[in-house]
């Protein structure tokens, strides 16, 4: 697989939901694609952040208040609904989901651009062949693809 792994595929890979063949393909691709590795890290962090978010149990007094309301039929003030976690918990979840989706869409837009790494690998694979004796080539082309390209530093 030389192609870019798309979002659902990366997500499935992260969840361990891919069968062995596509999984091997994704792993091979990621060994040479910094973009997909970064995307995978981003997904992993998002997943961890979501799973690590605090999940509060329903407060005991809320359960008691609900029970009392049914039993006693007591009328609550008009603003009481806005103070109840039962309103704000779904709203918070919705906001969090919206934020996550916006992050995802942003990264998807970035993915629409072609990453540079496969082109670098194609250039390196060919150019290393040019007039350099093969037996003592600067570096193996394949290994170039498998090794990290590193950060681009100041050049001049």
């Amino acid at each position, binding site marked *: 697989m*030389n*192609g*870019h*792994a*798309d979002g659902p595929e990366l997500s499935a890979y992260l969840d361990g939901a891919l069968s062995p063949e596509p999984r*091997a393909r994704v*792993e*091979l691709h990621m*060994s040479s694609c910094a*973009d997909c590795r970064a995307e995978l890290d981003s997904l992993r962090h998002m997943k961890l952040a979501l799973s690590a978010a605090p999940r509060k149990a329903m407060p005991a007094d809320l359960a008691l208040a609900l029970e009392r309301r049914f039993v006693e039929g007591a009328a609550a003030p008009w603003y009481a609904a806005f103070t109840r976690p039962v309103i704000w918990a779904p709203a918070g979840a919705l906001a969090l989901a919206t934020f996550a989706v916006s992050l995802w869409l942003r990264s998807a837009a*970035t993915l*629409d*651009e*072609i*990453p*540079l790494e*496969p*082109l*670098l*690998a*194609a*250039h*390196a*694979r*060919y*150019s290393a*062949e*040019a*007039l*350099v*004796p*093969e*037996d*003592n*080539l*600067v*570096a*193996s*082309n*394949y*290994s170039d*693809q*498998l*090794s990290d*390209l*590193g*950060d*681009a*530093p*100041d*050049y*001049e």
Partner: protein
Amino acid sequence: MRPITNRAATALAALLLGAPARAMPAADELLQQALATPAIQYQGKVMVTQWYGRQTRAEEMHVHFSPPGNIRREFLAPDGRVARVSVSDGEFESVSRDGKVVVGDAVRSYEKVMTPERERELLLSNYELSVGTADKVAGRPVWLLTLEPKLKGKAWQSMAVDQETKIVLRVKRYLPRRAYASQASFTSFEPGKAQDPALFHLGGSTATAIAASALAPDFMTLEQLAKETGRDSRLPKSLPGGFSFESADVVKVGRSRAAHARYTDGLTVLSVFETERPVKLPKSGLLETGTGFPGALSASRGGKVLKLDAGGRHYILMGDLSKELLADVARALK
């Protein structure tokens, strides 16, 4: 008493010094010998160094070679353990790392579109060759073959060629007064050392083998490239700086495809990619985006990268050239 001739004096000196003195070869002849596939087995240690801006990257490897084209490279981690292994028989290549083996086609020079004669002709028209002596490399006497570009802005290349075996013991590419250079140099060299055939065994019995034949480039003409992509190619047969079209292939990137045309001046390779969608350049390493410059220029380990949009098409130029020369090439594509 008869006077001692120069040849006799040389022979006498060689006898006294214990090593045969060799006459300095012609540059062209030495280049031919250096580029020929060695006919002997050897092994050695090679240090690969890349100067890259303010960074330097070094990697050590063990090399084993056996004719006609079997080569094994063991890349070492800083602590000396083998980090990855590359084995090639000239036709196929396998790389093992992290318990996995990738097997694919090796780059085959004989599949090139440009003939070796034409490539050599280009080299001689674009570079001045000279031969000199240099300090020993890996303890062995060498000839220093220097390829100096006739045009400013291209990399120089020097090869330290073993005087006895004509095997290249050190290759250095550099741009004078620029921060980028790469060098591969033997630190130890044992010619004639018998090599165990098992060293050149492709693949591994216990590791996971993954076929990666798509990683090998094709060698297409511009006409074949246009047929393959289904688009009229605007790529020319020659470019400024003495570059001529050598061959092309198609690089698959996800659902997109990039036409990859390779140009050469006999030594330096310039890649021109024509892509369906824009290419994302890394944020770091950006060198030039200002007005008057035809595109965005960035740096990478493979040389400079110039991103250019022209005539509704997206181009990426890649090569080890000065930015001025790369800009001239880009203007020719506009």
